[in-house]
């Protein structure tokens, strides 16, 4: 039997939501599951700009003040940075896919610096093919 699978659409580029996506993804990998992350729209934009840490908070951002406070508390609680979670994700064999439609809309080229992170490019058909065989599917 194939390993169980988690498939997550990462649509948001918000700092806190990227944490949710990567923590669930890495938790799934740690439990022996296969994981595909489909990056689209704002999540894809963050990824391609290598700016995972730069996203705003989804709530209480307050022009950066809220995020500054949250980051300070996270550092005190020794929460790993997003870049570290991303490295762990790759090391544990997670797959990252970029949706092609928003790439065209947002002017993201395959030559952009994220290319080394992206395992494949696809559209909704690739996502559904994965998702219908997944026990966990999320849209973040």
């Amino acid at each position: 039997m194939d390993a169980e699978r988690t498939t997550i659409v990462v649509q948001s580029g918000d700092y806190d939501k990227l944490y949710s996506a990567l923590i669930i993804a890495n938790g799934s990998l740690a439990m022996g599951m296969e994981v595909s992350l489909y990056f689209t729209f704002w999540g894809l934009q963050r990824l391609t700009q290598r700016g995972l840490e730069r996203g705003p908070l989804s709530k209480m951002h307050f022009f950066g003040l809220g995020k500054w406070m949250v980051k300070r508390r996270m550092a005190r609680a020794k929460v790993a940075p997003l870049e570290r979670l991303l490295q762990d994700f790759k090391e544990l064999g997670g797959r990252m896919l970029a949706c092609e439609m928003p790439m065209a809309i947002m002017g993201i080229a395959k030559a952009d610096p994220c290319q080394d992170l992206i395992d494949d490019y696809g559209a909704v058909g690739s996502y559904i093919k994965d998702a219908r065989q997944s026990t966990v599917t999320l849209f973040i």
Partner: protein
Amino acid sequence: MATIKVDVRGENCPVPLVETRKALRKANPGDIIEIAGTHPASRKEIPFAAEALKLELLAVEGADDDWTIRIRR
């Protein structure tokens, strides 16, 4: 057979779980992974991972905020 030590004391979610998985991937069958941590939820959840991976959980010792877990690969 070797004992591989993983020190995740002071680390927060999801690092203890992820570092456990990394060590398990590198270990040989029969090796023992010994994880030392302080993150309370991980004391409960690393055994979930051992179960999901169908590995033998040898021991869960210590307090919620200062524990040692041993798993056989």
